[in-house]
């Protein structure tokens, strides 16, 4: 698997919004101020990369269940290490920072990044680093919106006469995250449409191309169209239910594997 494949896999449309949902608890708790969000983003990135790397490195010795145990234990210890380091450095990361760190240790972003048995260390490091960067950007964006509009301040300095205190409540955090997730969906849809337009143009110019190339491009265009049609059909409630069932089955399969 090349570097480009790993990046594509990590930044796949479904995975990005799944990461938003998996990390929602920490994202709501840690984004009341930009400073806390930055500290938590750095700590989470550290926890994510270290725990995944150690679990992956010990994967050959420990087995499938052992990987999960090691992953959880290392993430908990790194969370404590981060809290202790910030305390020693006298960083003011908020009153509930220890609780946020404890919750981060079991947050979905870290737990779902647990490597499978046989995953290489380098692949694990790259994929967890990509997840960490995306999650850090998400935390900072959410904190910027919540602090700027919620308290009318930027890094503690008051810059706006009016504020919307609702945004500083968990409800405001959840709605902000939901809107950001919707924006991610919109961006992904635009990219997909642009890609399919490029493929269609290539098909139009297909007369000049060789027969072999034409077939390849056409099949790609057909796949795109099928995907679009499938996505449109999802608006239909029955299709939505079918999708939900499929998702359930997929979840159950994944969890079965995990249990095994």
């Amino acid at each position, binding site marked *: 698997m090349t570097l480009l494949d790993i990046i594509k896999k990590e930044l796949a449309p*479904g995975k990005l*919004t*799944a990461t*938003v*949902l*998996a*990390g*929602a*608890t*920490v994202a*709501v*708790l840690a984004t009341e101020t930009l400073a806390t969000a930055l500290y938590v983003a750095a700590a989470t990135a550290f926890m994510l990369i270290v725990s995944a790397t150690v679990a992956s490195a010990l994967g050959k010795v420990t087995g499938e269940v052992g990987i999960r*145990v090691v992953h*959880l*234990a290392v993430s*908990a*210890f790194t*969370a*404590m290490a981060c*809290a*202790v380091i910030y*305390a020693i450095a006298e960083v003011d990361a908020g009153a509930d920072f*220890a*609780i946020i*760190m*404890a*919750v981060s*240790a*079991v*947050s*979905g972003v870290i*737990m779902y990044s647990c490597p499978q048995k046989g995953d290489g260390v380098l692949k694990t490091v790259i994929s967890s680093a990509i997840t960490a960067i995306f999650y850090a950007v998400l935390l900072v964006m959410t904190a910027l919106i919540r602090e700027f509009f919620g308290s009318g301040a930027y890094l503690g300095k008051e810059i706006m006469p009016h504020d919307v205190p*609702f945004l500083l*409540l*968990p*409800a*405001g*955090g*959840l*709605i902000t*995250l*939901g*809107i950001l*997730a*919707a*924006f991610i*969906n919109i961006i992904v*849809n635009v990219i997909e449409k642009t890609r399919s337009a490029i493929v269609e143009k290539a098909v139009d110019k297909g007369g000049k191309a060789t027969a072999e190339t034409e077939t390849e491009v056409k099949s790609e265009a057909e796949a795109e169209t099928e995907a679009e049609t499938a*996505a449109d059909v*999802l*608006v239909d*409630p029955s299709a939505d239910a079918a999708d*939900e069932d499929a998702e*359930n089955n997929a*979840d*159950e399969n994944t*969890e*079965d594997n*995990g*249990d095994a």
Partner: protein
Amino acid sequence: MLILIFISVFVENAVFIFAMGIDGLDKLAKEPRRALTLGFLLAIVTVASDAILWNLTYVQQHGIGYLMIVAAPIVAAGVSAAVAFIMKKLFADTYKKIGQYMIHIASNSAVVGMLCRVTPQAESLVDSVVRAALSAVGVVFAYVVFASIRERIPESKQPRALRGAPTLLIAAGLLAMVFCGFYGMRL
């Protein structure tokens, strides 16, 4: 007792007021019946973990505060594994249906968050266990209510951009707004 339950369910709800366990809304709150069963298991894990951790809190008073960050997730995961093992032996049919969700209970941020928030404040073991049980009741209520709403989401037409995670997050946010109305209420 009713007042205490009211406070833990509405006024100090762990999910919608303290924002703990929101990631559990995705996996544990899919349909109300299942949410209730899983919530019951979550409550058992929380209470048992709390009883174990209270002893550590006693140690914590002597200057090892950050131990809680490591202890809470590991104890919760261990208790969850023990509950799964017992369930597999005694209630094999139930385990087949919901055993796969035990991993989401073990790594549920509501459990860890409640343990970190409730246990250090308790004055005795009984006090700690009662507080943890009441907080767990609040989490179960939140999951069941959210599952009831979530059941109806597929029936409605949604804009393409809002399908999936955005809808769930916004629905949770609106529900949290409802619970905000109770916050600060004194009984």
